[in-house]
């Protein structure tokens, strides 16, 4: 086992994140949707939204957040973003325009709303990819599903000595390390 300490809950971080997270999420969505008339846009907003999940992971433990997260939503967001962007782009072709020629949509201010939709698509892609990148790097090479629970449980007992037992979340990655180094 390494000298690293397992994840320990910090009430300060937890309550700060609980307070700040909704505002950060709102800000991210605002930046995405308001990119047309102020600095901002899909790339920035998407990263800010993704950082909410990263914040939650740091406060509540990476594994717990991963279990809480619905993976279908994550995959759906990422693929949906690509589909939305691609769909808007190709839809213009179907309506007789060129690729991404937003003016052909028969809506008032089609270009403006088209741009907003594309920004939302970009934000979805970026959010989904950044969240998956984070979890892939933080806990990617996990032992197969069956072993995960046992590991977490053992880590929980270790943490119990330090903080009363409800805290451990991420020691399984460490035990993978330890096994390989041995």
């Amino acid at each position, binding site marked *: 086992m390494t000298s690293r300490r397992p994840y320990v809950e910090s009430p300060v971080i937890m309550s700060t994140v609980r307070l700040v997270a909704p505002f950060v999420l709102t800000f991210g969505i605002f930046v995405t949707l308001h990119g047309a008339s102020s600095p901002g846009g899909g*790339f920035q907003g998407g990263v800010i939204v993704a950082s909410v999940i990263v914040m939650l992971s740091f406060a509540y433990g990476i594994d717990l957040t991963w279990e809480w997260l619905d993976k279908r939503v994550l995959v759906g967001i990422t693929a949906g973003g690509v589909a939305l962007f691609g769909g808007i782009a190709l839809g213009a072709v179907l309506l007789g325009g060129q690729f991404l020629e937003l003016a052909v949509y028969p809506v008032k201010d089609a270009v403006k709303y088209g741009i907003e939709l594309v920004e939302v698509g970009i934000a979805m892609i970026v959010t989904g990819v*950044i969240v998956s990148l984070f979890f892939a790097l933080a806990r990617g090479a996990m032992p197969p599903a069956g072993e995960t629970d046992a590991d977490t449980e053992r880590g929980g007992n270790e943490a119990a000595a330090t903080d009363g037992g409800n805290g451990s979340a991420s020691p399984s990655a460490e035990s993978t390390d330890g096994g*390989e180094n041995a």
Partner: protein
Amino acid sequence: MIEDFLLRYNYVVFALLLGIGLYIVIDDENLVKKVIGLNIFQTGIFLFFITVAVRDGGSPAVTHGGEGTFVNPLPHVLILTAIVVGVSLTALALALVVRIHEEYGSIREDVVVEVLERD
């Protein structure tokens, strides 16, 4: 001569950042540090692009159609997307580092080379 550089101070910093990034990539044995070096090199190039776009008295290009002095929006677009693509590529590089650590038990280049030579 000196004045040439004083008028182009941002480009001097750009050159320095490239040099520092290159040094980390060449010299540091730690693979994570190498990725950081790549990022410093990359932000140096971003600085070049953003500086090219600057204009005295210019404001960010948020406008109803052209009255006023604006900085050049085009390099901003390029760099904006480059940053996001950059973080994705950084993550890919880090994933490769994690795989190297799984295979060779170290993220230090010299140790990895040693393990490779021993086998």
